[in-house]
């Protein structure tokens, strides 16, 4: 364990130095993270305005709070490792990593955390700006804040594991861009980017049964105070269940994949 911590610290330092060289790049990724929630926030606000200020039980200010939370959560839970993994397989860079004593997963854990820490200072003022433009109103209590922490951590872990699950397919297909795009669209439809799950109409009942909502929607609802404490606890339990399932799935697939993996371009 101590050994692992020492290794982690070393990768941390290296990754931070690397990240510091690509500051502009990080800000750009931020832009991608912000535009989509703002687009749908604007659409829902305009729709609510035509309906006399509210849709269902949500007012414009509730939508604003929800989408500010979604933006924060999607940044905190972002995972792009599948794309990197594909590149590493295609360029034959994976093989040396497989030979190291540490699972490649650990490197991307650190890279992932560093990116989030590095972009947070730039994201927060933007969130304040959005909240102010749309007059967001949060119904958050201290209980919600407390529950938000484990919920967003679980969501990040879940998204990360799903990213790796998708990435593992590259052992067989080499290219995972296609799979990742389809996955991104499922997230778009069912994770709460397009609308809070309760507004999905006929799709809502499917969405509650899929893992995607527990990557974005659940922590966002908790953060804006849209779920009661009991509901929040239930969401967290489901998140934990999905995380366990995806972890098992990943372990199984990874083992199968590594066994039949033959390096490219070496």
């Amino acid at each position: 364990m101590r050994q692992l911590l020492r290794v982690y610290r070393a990768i941390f330092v290296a990754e931070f130095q690397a990240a510091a060289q690509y500051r502009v790049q990080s800000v750009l990724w931020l832009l991608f993270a912000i535009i989509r929630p703002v687009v749908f926030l604007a659409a829902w606000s305009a729709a609510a305005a035509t309906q006399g200020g509210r849709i269902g039980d949500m007012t414009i200010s509730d939508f604003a709070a929800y989408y500010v939370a979604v933006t924060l959560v999607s940044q905190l839970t972002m995972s792009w490792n599948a794309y990197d993994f594909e590149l590493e397989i295609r360029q034959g860079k994976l093989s040396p990593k497989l030979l190291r004593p540490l699972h490649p997963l650990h490197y991307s854990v650190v890279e992932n955390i560093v990116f989030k820490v590095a972009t947070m200072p730039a994201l927060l003022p933007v969130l304040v700006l959005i909240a102010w433009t749309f007059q967001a109103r949060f119904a958050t209590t201290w209980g919600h804040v407390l529950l938000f922490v484990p919920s967003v951590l679980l969501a990040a872990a879940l998204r990360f594991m799903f990213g790796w699950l998708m990435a593992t397919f590259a052992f067989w297909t080499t290219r995972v861009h296609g799979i990742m795009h389809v996955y991104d669209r499922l997230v778009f439809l069912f994770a709460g980017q397009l609308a809070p799950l309760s507004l999905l109409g006929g799709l809502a009942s499917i969405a509650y049964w899929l893992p995607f909502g527990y990557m974005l929607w659940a922590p966002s609802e908790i953060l804006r105070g849209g779920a009661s404490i009991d509901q929040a606890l239930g969401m967290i339990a489901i998140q934990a269940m999905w995380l366990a399932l995806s972890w098992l799935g990943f372990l199984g697939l990874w083992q199968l994949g590594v066994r039949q993996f033959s390096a490219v371009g070496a």
Partner: protein
Amino acid sequence: MRYLRLLGLFARTELQFALEYRANLALDLFEELIIVISSLVAVLILYDHTSAINGWTEGQMIELLGVYYLVQGAQAVVFETSFERFMEHVRMGTLDFILIKPVDSQFMISTRHVQVPQFGQIAMGVLVLAIGIAQVGGGFGVLDTLAFAATLACGLLLVYSLLLVLSTLSFWFVRVENLLAIFWSFLDAGRFPVDVYPGWLRVTLSTVVPIGIAVTVPAQAIAGRLELAGVVAMIGGTISMCWFASWFWRRGLRSYTGASA
């Protein structure tokens, strides 16, 4: 005429290239289909809860989505990859080989890598547009059609001019993909009419990153919501923007000295 033939030639070679990876090609088309369908679902869900958004009815919003994929598809077919390759050429110093070809260099770098598979997006754009038109019902006049065609062409030229200006910057700053990435990130906002956005975003989408105008104005035209003055302003703006982009390109070309020479 000669340039049209060249364009056909570019398309043919690129198609042959794409056909080498057939499974990938099929997957690309499948992906585009999924993207378009999920966007359509998004519109349907929104209109489940309201009858209009800022005066846009459901049918009109679907028309707008169709125009969005038309514009997006057209720029992906012709310009997107070409400009990416162009910037790579500047960095690697291989641009010289393009410059010495007996073809207008602006034409060459803008259209060399025609992406035939992306025609799928255009086709789906047309389909979505047709669904929208069917839903709105009622005919539209010759004038509306003309206005639509004119503003759509203008919208494409506006997007093209912006891409050309951004790419030209690579003569001075070697790494400008980042600037293009800004453009891609705003592209997503084109799926709704610019008038739903708050001030700062609306201004950005109509001036710096004109994707908003490029999509919204033609959609307004087909919905019969556009005044003649709007068409004239759009055409005027496009001509001056094209002129500026072309001038800027020539200016950049003059200061190009070749890499690693």
